[in-house]
């Protein structure tokens, strides 16, 4: 096992120098060095992102798309430049296909309400997978309540692998939408997105990928994938919380009705009738997270300079190392050992509840997520109410994993 790990490490880039870019990682908690292993919930921020948000408020803050004055022009320009930056980050065909939202959750809700609400009807089928986060389940259930669609669930196996053949069997001429995670937040499984999209398109279904994890763990090319909608959050990509992205193919977005009404999404308003703006403004009602766009822009610059492939390779190296180290603990059961997975490890320890583990690890300075990870159907699938989850960011290293393994020993000390 260890040989397999060391065999993979030689290709790993030197990531150590980036750790110092994240000021919070120098913190101590309970007088112990912070070991942050919860990046799948939200990633920490490099200094350049913090500086960018601060720069906006100190030097360029004003509302966008409104003022004729200098400040507003600067902020508007920065906001729109971020849109272009996101376009390039996802390799979208046009910046008009990039809609800013609060986060991946709002992006999915937007698609369900606007695209789903306007094009789907009673009896139409959509397919989700058993891996989904609540954010890619509940919006579709709300739509089901509204218009009576059918929701089908693509199964996974006991290792957490997405079962492509079983998914294919669920596809039918009634399938209008496939909404699947591009990386399970709870298990780390990365479903075969390209094959899913190809199969779904062959039956005429539109595909949304929930990229909350997927956009962080590897490079995304929406044109190569030919995906119809792609959702992700800024805060998991080392940017600020409160800003996220929905990518949608222009032809689909142009045909969709607004999601919310308000300022900035109109062309002309009278009390009798409102003409809506073109995309992307049509889907951006109200004042957005302006400073968040500055931060997201800095975050994309930051990860792009390192390289998403380099970040992904580091993630895989940590995953292999952690998988081997955790396997040394006899009473530990990993949940989710899919062949294709990101740096996320869910596990349970015999006889010790995840919350008790989380509390003890916390006192050792280690931040992990415990609980159901907003994926209760997935927890039910494995017969657990929750797990302990360690997840990696680009700043993590093997010492963090060693600290986790040592602290799990402290759990055994308390619980025997």
């Amino acid at each position, binding site marked *: 096992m260890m040989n397999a790990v060391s065999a993979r490490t030689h290709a790993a880039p030197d990531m150590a120098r980036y750790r110092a870019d994240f000021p919070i990682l120098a913190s101590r908690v309970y007088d112990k060095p912070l070991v942050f292993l919860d990046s799948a919930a939200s990633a920490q921020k490099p200094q350049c992102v913090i500086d960018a948000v601060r720069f906006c408020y100190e030097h360029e803050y004003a509302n966008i798309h409104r003022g004729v004055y200098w400040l507003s022009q600067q902020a508007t320009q920065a906001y729109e430049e971020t849109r272009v930056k996101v376009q390039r980050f996802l390799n979208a065909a046009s910046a008009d296909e990039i809609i800013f939202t609060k986060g991946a959750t709002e992006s999915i809700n937007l698609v369900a309400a606007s695209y789903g609400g306007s094009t789907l009807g009673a009896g139409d089928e959509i397919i989700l997978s058993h891996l989904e986060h609540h954010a890619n389940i509940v919006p579709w259930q709300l739509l089901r309540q509204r218009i009576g669609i059918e929701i089908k669930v693509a199964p996974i196996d006991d290792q957490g692998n997405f079962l492509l053949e079983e998914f294919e069997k669920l596809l039918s001429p009634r399938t209008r939408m496939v909404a699947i995670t591009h990386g399970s937040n709870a298990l780390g499984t990365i479903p075969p997105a390209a094959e899913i999209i190809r199969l779904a398109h062959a039956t005429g279904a539109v595909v949304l990928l929930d990229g909350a994890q997927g956009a962080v763990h590897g490079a995304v090319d929406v044109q190569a994938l030919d995906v119809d909608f792609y959702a992700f959050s800024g805060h998991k990509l080392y940017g600020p919380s409160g800003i996220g992205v929905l990518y949608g193919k222009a032809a689909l977005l142009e045909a969709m009705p607004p999601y919310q009404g308000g300022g900035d999404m109109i062309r002309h308003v009278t009390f009798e009738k409102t003409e809506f703006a073109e995309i992307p403004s049509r889907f951006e009602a109200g004042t957005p997270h302006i400073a968040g766009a500055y931060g997201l822009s800095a975050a994309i610059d930051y990860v792009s300079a390192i390289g998403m492939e380099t970040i992904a390779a580091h993630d895989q190296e940590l995953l292999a190392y952690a998988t081997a180290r955790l396997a040394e603990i006899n009473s530990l059961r990993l949940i989710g050992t899919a062949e294709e997975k990101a740096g996320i490890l869910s596990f349970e320890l015999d006889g010790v509840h995840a*919350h*008790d583990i989380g509390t003890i690890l916390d006192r050792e300075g280690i931040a992990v997520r415990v609980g159901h990870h907003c994926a209760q159907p997935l927890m039910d699938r494995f017969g657990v109410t929750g797990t302990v989850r360690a997840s990696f960011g680009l700043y993590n290293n093997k010492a963090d994993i060693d600290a986790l393994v040592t602290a799990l020993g402290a759990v055994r000390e308390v619980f025997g």
Partner: protein
Amino acid sequence: MSALRELYQEVILDHGRTPRNFGKPEQVTCESNGYNPLCGDTVTVYLKLKDGIVEDVGFEGRGCAISIASASMMTEILRGKGVAEIRAVFERFHDLMTEENAADEDAFDDEDFEKLTVLSGVREFPMRVKCATLAWHTMQAALKGDYQEVTTE
């Protein structure tokens, strides 16, 4: 480790591993379900009341050491107590979980309540107070005949 040792005392670990009064009593006059949506933990508290006095009590559920131990210890002291008395114990227990001075053990004259002070370490862990109080809120709901699920949120 000291705050942790305070939290995970042997008595608590013991109740967590082998909870007392676990299961549904033969006769039940009121019951209620509790749920913590943060962790998915559940508890059901069963009571047999006669003339306003708890004659029998039991609970079922799954949860962390703190929530199971708290439920177990709660069931141990309810038998023979009246509804008003239980409410008073509940309020004192709640204070014990949340208020700084409540840990002053000399203030407790009640032998039953003194047993519960072993749980006072939870105060140092604000995120875990809901674990310790879930069964208690559920028990209160059962007493009130409130059959709606109790949640911590």
